[in-house]
């Protein structure tokens, strides 16, 4: 409803107002070094380095930084790892994985530039249980497509003594969506823990379409079991559908979307939250712009750990 109010105001403005392109003299800024690194026990270490672009630049080109020395060290002293450059600013380890419950530090040294540091941890593992139900919503023979509704019930239990943060997305099956843009979904997760107004995708007429992600913490449920539901619908190719029927309510691997629950660090949570807010509020007049938080000293971006739990529907 709040969006509707704003929509109404903006629409009124658009009806009577007009637009002018302005030349605003922005100060010259030295483009910062950008760190993008999410680390999880399921993947090897990976850090992407690039340069931010001044808004005065004629063309926005985000060039990867290839001449840096990137080092990961663990706080317990068990790890000191220099990452190799794999091209276009991507630095990786070949074998080593982060470990749950461990704190790490990133160091980036680059000749002629100030060094960067960031530190974060991989959250501890939690108990996750889930059940799901698939319901055929519509069968469009012309397009050889079946629309299916998925209802997933999730129950999770985390450590009592620490604050825990979560992010939830629904990722499509690779066969169905090459861009891998998260699917729209509905969930009760945010309302259960009472935090962070969900940001729904809204149609041009103001209709609520669904969520692309849900970000929440256990602030009001510390130590308790958290239960919530996720609902989403997706299009299924007919061949996947028949396989699904034949296999008795089980979807083949290439056909199945999946809910993805991430147990994330505080830095990840702050970054994801402010990032999402900036995207959603950027089109709203009169709202204060949102500065995306960063835990990178000497640069911008994020160096954040998480543990992922894929809730497969197969």
């Amino acid at each position, binding site marked *: *409803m709040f969006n509707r109010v704003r929509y109404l105001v903006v629409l009124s403005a658009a009806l009577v107002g007009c637009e002018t392109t302005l030349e605003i003299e922005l100060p010259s800024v030295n483009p910062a070094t950008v760190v993008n690194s999410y680390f999880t026990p399921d993947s090897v270490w990976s850090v992407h380095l690039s340069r931010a*672009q001044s808004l005065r630049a004629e063309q926005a080109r985000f060039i990867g930084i290839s001449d840096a020395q990137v080092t990961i060290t663990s706080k317990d002293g068990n790890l000191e790892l220099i990452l190799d450059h794999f091209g276009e600013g991507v630095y990786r380890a070949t074998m080593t994985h982060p470990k749950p419950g461990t704190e790490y530090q990133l160091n980036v040294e680059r000749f002629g530039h100030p060094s960067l540091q960031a530190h974060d941890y991989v959250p501890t593992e939690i108990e996750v249980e889930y059940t799901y139900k698939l319901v055929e919503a519509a069968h469009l023979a012309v397009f050889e497509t079946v629309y299916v509704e998925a209802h997933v019930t999730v129950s999770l239990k985390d450590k009592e003594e620490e604050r825990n943060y979560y992010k939830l997305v629904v990722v499509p099956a690779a066969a169905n969506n090459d861009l891998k843009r998260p699917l729209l979904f509905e969930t009760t997760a945010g309302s259960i823990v*009472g935090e962070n107004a969900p940001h729904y995708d809204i149609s041009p007429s103001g209709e609520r379409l669904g969520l692309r992600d849900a970000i929440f913490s256990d602030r009001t449920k510390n130590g308790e079991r958290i239960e919530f539901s996720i609902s989403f619908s997706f299009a299924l190719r007919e061949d996947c559908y028949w396989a699904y029927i034949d296999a008795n309510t089980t979807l083949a691997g290439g056909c199945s979307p999946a809910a993805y629950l991430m147990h994330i660090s505080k830095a990840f949570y702050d970054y994801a939250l402010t990032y999402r807010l*900036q995207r959603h509020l950027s089109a709203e007049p009169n709202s204060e712009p949102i500065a995306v938080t960063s835990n990178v000293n000497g640069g*911008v971006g994020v160096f954040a750990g998480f543990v992922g739990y894929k809730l497969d529907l197969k």
Partner: protein
Amino acid sequence: MRIGWIAITLVGLVLPLGGYASAQNPIESEEATINGFVRDAESGEFLFGAHILEPNNKLGTSSNQYGFFSLTVPADSVTVQISYVGYAMWVSDLYVTDDISLSVELVPIWKIADSITVVVDRIQEPSEGSPLNVMHIPITQIQSLPAILGEVDPLRSMQLLPGVQAGSEASSGLHIRGGSADQTLTLLDGGRIYSIYHLFGFYSVFNSDALGHVNLLKGGIPARFGGTLSSVLDVGMREGNSTRHAGSFVLGAVASRIVQEGPIRKGLGSYLVAGRRTYIDVLVRPFMEKEVVGYRFSDANAKINSQLSKRDKIYGSFYQGRDGYSYQNEREWSYKSMLKWSNRIATVRWNRLMTNKLFSNITASYSHYTYRSSEDYRSDLNGQYAYRYTSRIRELRLKADLEYSHSPRHHIRFGGTAATQEFTPGAIGINNDYGGDHNWGTGGTRLKGVGVALYAEDMFIVGGRFRINMGIRWAAFSVNSKLYQVAEPRVSARYSVLSRWRVTGSYGRMAQFIYLLPNGGLALPTDLWLPVTDQIPMQTGNIFTVGLSRAYLSNGIEFSSEGYYKTMTHLVEYKNGAQFLNQGASWEDKVELGSGNSYGAEVLIRKSGTSTNGWIGYTLSWTNRTFPAFNGGKPFPYRYDRRHDVAVVMNQELAEGLELSAVWTFSTGAAISLPTMVYQAWSVAISPCAACNIEHFGQRNQYRMRNYHRMDLGINVSRPQRGGERTISIGAYNAYNRKNPFYLYRDEEQGRNVFKQVSLLPIVPYITYRRTY
């Protein structure tokens, strides 16, 4: 008399200077009190703020809101002058040996034949403080100024005064000397109004035809006013014509309004009823079929008064304003949504002249603001979704104000107030089977607050040139079984230098127990009023002013200037991106606390007269906020920080019945935050897109929008008609079609970043027809 001495004792305890001034008074032994009422000879309405002067002894006072005055003079031959802007001065030589009562009727200038020379009063100068602290625009002047689509709005006229900011383009908001909108206490006939806007701030709730006075107190706020950090907007409805039945109606492009008034009980009372309604919804409905969108607002004002005895008078007034927006779509699915918000204020006041020197006013008021919204979606395919949201605030207030004219050199006021407030910040109900079979909802928290306040103030004269108003207010507020209390000392002083120059100064400690949680810079009906809690402390502030003014330059021109410095603590802002609609979360978890300051200087040159009147106002100001959670904890310019602000207002009578009005305003562009860099966020399946761009912001509000300026022009053509007058007003808002900025956004054109400015109102012509009878 006993009550008066109790008041003196109370004031004397807290105001040592009061005792000093009293001891210096050489004329206490043989004196007499002249009291009475000042009213308009044409309508019989009481005049608020009329000057009563005894020039030989340099004594003076002014009439209060009910037209009452009391002036103690030496028991001898005296000259009494009574004046009010727009009226001929009343002068009389009296020989007083004992207390006397007067009933003075001032004749409007327009009623007096041209051949008669009349003494025209200078601009209303407040009896205390400086002209820039207590500001007043006559309703007749407000009605003659150009208006958006011809809909006259008193608040829009107040925005033209120094130290008053509108907020955003076309908004009726008042941001006084760097304060936010909730720091202005708005009173209608003594009852508090919590939402003063229609149509998202385009218009205020005040129907100018029903109003008698609009006063704005920006500094040197006397102790009788409390519960506000920055200013008081004191609006009073007219009492109605007590001599004959009369009325008027106005036909405009957006709305029409009507007023009917007249005497009751053979001149011992009067009534006034007024109504206003927009008709956009009615006009657009024939053009809509499957989709129906409608918006309307309406106001109803009513007031009645009755003289119960020579010493008692009772008033009843009522206001109700409603806004409604609806949208309905009937296709393969059905969708309905509604927004409704309303204000309701009822006041009953009892005036009693207890003695010739003691006047009392008892006010009981009820104020109610409700906001409701709903959505209903039904589809055979997707099921149904229904949503309800309600927020509300209710207030019941009892107030007693007493004025005691102890001597020519002491005018004492004291009183108290008690109020209960009920806050329901938001109750949400959702019925949802979209994507599941679950129904859920959250109830709104209901909070009850009880507030009491006591005050005493003494306006006294030291020597012949020093006039001081010193007072103290004690206020307490209880909510959630916790008591919050504060003492607010207030002092304002005026020193007359030479014949007409005045040096003024004031200090006021201010406190506010409730605050508004606004959603951005627009005046949305979803903005919530909330009380202090354990986590959100009482807001406090200090206002210092010092000024210099000259009462009368030449040709009715006055000059006044003032500097001010203001501090504010425990200001509230939403956390980044937080919104009012957040199921399950407490509002206390959604806000950040900070502080602010504001300082600057204001200059006003004002001209009064029968054929030419108006003013030039200029403000130079700085307003900053400091929030630990924003801008790295460093101070940043407030959204409504404007370095320069200019307003030129002129009414010129070109010929009999032909008047030209012009307004030109200029202000420095609004402070905004703009990105300085952009960078990529990488991560497939974690981000909403594969490689999205993030905007990096530097300091908060470090840039400025383009400067704002516009000119409004209007011509009023009046002709006498049988039993009244008709006036046709033609004009244009933003006459030279300036594209003023409403907001900016970043866009890309040919791979290059550009900022685009959206403007709201181009040139908007208007025509209205007004008929009085």
